[in-house]
């Protein structure tokens, strides 16, 4: 029983990180129809900022703020420099553009920083753990769950109560009509990227605080997982992205904990088979995007 609870906490921590990343992909996709595979490089940028701040001896809170801000700034720049020129091009063109950005950034990290993994100095308290009854829970896990909850509540309030958030929902549903209302395309798209950068930055801090290292390819795996989570939840649906992220986290952690030893090397394929099985029954994902049902003009 304790083992299950223990793994459930782990699953929430990992699933929450996937949820934040999947949300970042979904926010941009819902508005632009673009899957931004360079989302992972936003994480990597935040990771390196965390590393340099650690080396410079900055207080951790300041380091986190700088790392997240760097991811937001990088996301906005990415949109301005790379995606705006191809905004009206086909989805395939935008997808290839996002791969190009990811590769260029990876090469830059390898050549300007280091091809090898770099240690990130983290405060001691993150590797401590707290005892709850029979459970021993890492502070980094608690921090991950708390950060996820705060981000989800913030995002929900922003999307429901802020005029800009409502405009983003309107744009996701019908961009052309949203523009007729006077909603500026540039503002909404830049806003979506800023939000995705914020989510990637927070996810990066959570990711790095579990691993204490950063390397040029750091963002690739989590973003691939987030992409799977976004599909699982229903591409373009924000609630779906959260649901998909948590479900994927649960699948991975439970398989790692409870699969017999001899099957462990097949853990990832088994996990993906479960994802495929879910999609067989719900082809549009757990919580499909309503906008995708309507005709996109």
């Amino acid at each position: 029983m304790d083992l299950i609870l223990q793994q459930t906490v782990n699953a929430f921590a990992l699933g929450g990180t996937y949820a934040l990343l999947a949300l970042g992909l979904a926010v941009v996709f819902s508005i632009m129809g673009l899957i931004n595979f360079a989302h992972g490089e936003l994480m990597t940028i935040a990771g390196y900022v965390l590393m340099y701040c650690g080396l410079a001896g900055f207080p951790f809170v300041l380091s986190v703020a700088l790392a997240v801000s760097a991811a937001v700034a990088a996301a906005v720049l990415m949109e301005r420099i790379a995606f705006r020129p191809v905004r009206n091009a086909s989805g395939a063109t935008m997808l290839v553009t996002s791969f190009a950005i990811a590769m260029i950034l990876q090469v830059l990290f390898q050549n300007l920083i280091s091809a090898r993994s770099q240690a990130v100095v983290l405060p001691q308290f993150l590797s401590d753990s707290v005892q709850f009854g029979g459970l021993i829970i890492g502070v980094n896990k608690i921090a991950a769950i708390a950060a996820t909850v705060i981000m989800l509540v913030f995002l929900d309030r922003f999307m429901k109560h802020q005029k800009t958030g409502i405009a983003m929902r309107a744009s996701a549903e019908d961009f052309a009509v949203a523009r007729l209302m006077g909603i500026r395309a540039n503002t909404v798209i830049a806003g979506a990227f800023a939000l995705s950068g914020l989510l990637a930055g927070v996810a990066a801090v959570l990711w790095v605080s579990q691993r204490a290292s950063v390397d040029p390819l750091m963002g690739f795996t989590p973003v691939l997982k987030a992409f799977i989570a976004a599909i699982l939840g229903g591409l373009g649906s924000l609630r779906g992205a959260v649901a998909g992220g948590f479900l994927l986290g649960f699948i991975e952690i439970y398989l790692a904990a409870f699969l017999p030893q001899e099957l462990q090397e097949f853990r990832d394929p088994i996990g993906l088979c479960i994802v495929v099985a879910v999609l067989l029954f719900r082809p549009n994902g757990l919580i499909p995007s309503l906008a995708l049902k309507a005709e996109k003009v």
Partner: protein
Amino acid sequence: MSALLSVQSFHVHYGAVEAVRGIDFEIREGEIIALLGANGAGKSSTLNALVGLIPVAAGTVMFDGSDITHNAPETLAPAGLTLSPEGRRVFGTLSVAENLLMGAYGIRDKQAVAAAWDRVYTLFPILYERRDQFAGTLSGGQQQMLAVGRALMSNPRLLLLDEPSLGLAPKIVEQVFELITLLRDQGVTLAVVEQNVAMALEVADRGYLMSGGRIVAAGSAAELAQSDSLQSAYLGAG
């Protein structure tokens, strides 16, 4: 009366297809204009290109003395020109009130926005009753009211209505045309694209008849109602 909107040598292309092939028309302050024609005549293309949703291939559009030919759609609502699109296209996943809020998005004058809320809720009390409901759950007629109400939130001087009566029950269609007249009485200039020719000509002051991307007849509503070109345009002979 001076022209609020004047359009010259206006061309719209969809890829290689010439949807609108050089039309000239004008809309004067305080008028109701009916834009008529069979399916594919180029009416909706004209409206969509006027508001910048599709590019203008050639020609000029002057609105209230300034050239808006190539303006981005988001600049037009604040300037006083808006379109209630074909098929209503309300934001179904937003509440009624959120839809209306979006209609006033580009308007900075807070007092004007407050007045617009009053006006829309007075015109359509049902929207006030259903303000917290998702727009997607409204009936077709209510969605049409919301689409018009949303367009009114920006206090337009010129309101373009694309097929406002499409798919509505006859009784609701009558209400839509009463609304058009009422809005004109409140000082809004309107241009209406309609399949329902008889009712459109009943409320309109003047009309333009389009066929094959060109204007084939123009005149007062009474003149158009009697013209032969009207029948031939709808029978496809034009």
